[in-house]
């Protein structure tokens, strides 16, 4: 079944570097390749500074990628000029983390929704636009009485619904959700998560769900990618990732997630040593090697490739431990890598 699924977004080696003071470069996203299939939820997890938000923003071209290609429905949009992005904006929308700063405090929410339609020339008359705005508001669980309210008159959960309405009104196929529930209270969080799921069912949406709360990501996602220091270190289906985490970082990350079950609190935690290295000067070879309990000199010298080697198909991991298994011996791997370099040249 997986084979038949339509790839709706494909990124190849996307990089986003930011220049900072003293002529240094922050490598926020450093070569991420992944595919989104139509109708799925792809969870992107990782800790602060791993580049997951930057990747999301680059994907919808809020930022221009430094390198790499982004294909949406087969069309390369990575270098399309701003003027040609109109269609992309209709296809891909974003829901932001902070419900308090993501809405213009001086614009009534109905007017805001109608403005979105106006920008894209949708709807002929004002009353048609108004009808569409009201329809979308109902869809996300807001009442029409809310139409002329200002954002500050709403609670956090309602604002997140407004943000969702703003994203949905263009009828997009892909929604990049950047920590959409992490600022919400527990009881509101479940309402919004359910809303995301309902809308996915009714509108066949594809989500890129970026979050640091692993329990939430596990619940909502079909597949999950784990990022560390700008790199996608592991990717698998949700079940597969939680039953067989391969990358040492994923293992540590999952072991740290607290469980809401007092009888299970004695589980073994993998404590990572040291701090996250600076993205200005990432470690050579494997970016995780400075904190990895299994690091060898090989990890220092050679950047691991992302290989599909999980127990199930589609389990990709970037770690030398598994590369050896894949190639048989380290020597064979280095040889393969050498060939690859030669081909590249």
């Amino acid at each position, binding site marked *: 079944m997986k084979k038949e699924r339509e790839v709706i977004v494909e990124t190849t080696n996307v990089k986003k570097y930011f220049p900072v003071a003293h002529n240094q470069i922050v490598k926020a996203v450093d070569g991420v390749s992944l595919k989104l299939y139509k109708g799925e939820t792809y969870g992107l997890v990782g800790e602060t500074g791993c580049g997951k938000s930057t990747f999301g923003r680059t994907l919808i071209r809020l930022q221009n990628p430094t390198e790499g290609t982004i294909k949406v429905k087969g069309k390369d949009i990575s270098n399309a000029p701003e003027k040609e992005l*109109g269609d992309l904006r209709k296809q891909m929308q974003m829901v*932001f*983390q902070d419900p308090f700063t993501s809405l213009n405090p001086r614009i009534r929410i109905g007017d805001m929704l109608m403005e*979105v339609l106006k920008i*894209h020339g949708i709807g002929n008359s004002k*009353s048609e636009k108004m*009808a569409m705005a*009201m*329809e979308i508001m109902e869809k996300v669980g807001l009442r029409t009485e809310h139409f002329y309210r200002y954002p500050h008159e709403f609670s956090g959960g309602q604002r997140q619904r407004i943000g969702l309405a703003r994203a949905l009104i*263009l009828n997009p196929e892909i929604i990049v959700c950047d920590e959409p529930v992490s600022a919400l209270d527990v009881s509101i969080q479940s309402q919004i998560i359910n809303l995301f799921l309902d809308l996915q069912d009714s509108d066949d949406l594809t989500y890129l769900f970026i979050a640091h709360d692993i329990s939430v990501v596990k619940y909502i996602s079909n597949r999950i990618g784990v990022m560390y220091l700008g790199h996608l270190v592991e990717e698998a289906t949700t079940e597969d990732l939680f039953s067989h985490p391969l990358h040492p970082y994923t293992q540590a990350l999952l072991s740290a997630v607290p469980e809401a079950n007092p009888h299970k609190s004695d589980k073994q935690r993998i404590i990572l040593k040291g701090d996250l290295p600076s993205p200005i000067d990432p470690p050579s070879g494997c970016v995780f090697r400075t904190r990895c309990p299994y690091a060898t000199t090989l990890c220092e010298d050679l950047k691991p490739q992302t290989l599909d080697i999980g127990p199930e198909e589609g389990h990709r991991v970037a770690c030398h431990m598994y590369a050896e298994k894949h190639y048989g011996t380290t020597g064979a791997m280095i040889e393969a890598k050498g060939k690859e370099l030669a081909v590249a040249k």
Partner: protein
Amino acid sequence: MNNMKQRTLTEADLRRMVEIRNRLTKEQRSLQLHKFLRNRQAMVGLVIFLIVLFAAIFGPSLCKESPVALNVLNRLKPPSKEHWFGTDTLGRDVYTRVIYGARISMIVGVSVGAISGILGLIIGIYSSYNKYADEILMRICDGLKAIPSILLAITLMTALGADIKNVIISLTVVNTPTMGRLARSAALVVKEQTYIEAMRGIGAKSRRILWRHIAPNIMSPLLVQMTFVFATSIITEAALSFLGAGVPAPQPSWGSILSEGRTVIFTSQWMIIFPGAITAMTVLGLNLFGDGLRDLLDPLSS
């Protein structure tokens, strides 16, 4: 839900929405008004300002005499029933002159506040948006700000000639850089807000983002600053007239009345006290009002 039929709005629906809108607007207005009325300082400021504005507009009908009518026999008379504020060195009624002077002060204050506010907004918005515009505009602002403002105003007045229009021009030149800087820094903050990013994500063009989304959100500090510019222009205008570089005689201006009273300060204090006190009150009123405005204009705190 996706293939739900497109709903259209009936006349009744539209009418209902308009009704909701009006009701809400009224509600929001009355809430704001209520909040403002409760702010005593701002109310005091507003009342003082309105009195001065009223005097400036209806000055001629409030005074029996002409502000320039000489009456040498009646010179330097202390305050009395006929002459509330006394008379000056040429026997002119100080009360009348102060009322007429209010007109000058108001014209100068309003014009300078409004023009430098608008220019500042434009400068601020574009310099927050374009790096090159920023460099150029900000260096010009820095250059202007490097010269002490009163000196710059005097220089400009000398070059342009004493005239109320030129007072406005030179004070605008003096005040615009401050406004521009303020608008720029406010715009830079607003620009980083997620809702601006969200508008870009929706596909809004730069012009829409700059004028519809950034500009209204930097208006409140600008408006507040405008009231302060208003107040300082009144003072600067008075200072210019005091130094003889402002509104030409015999037109009455608060500064020139003070200047004339300077020579007789020990004998006829009324020539200094009344215009001086009124200038101070007006400026104080404007400042109080400006502070109140700041609270009122913040949509998040209502």
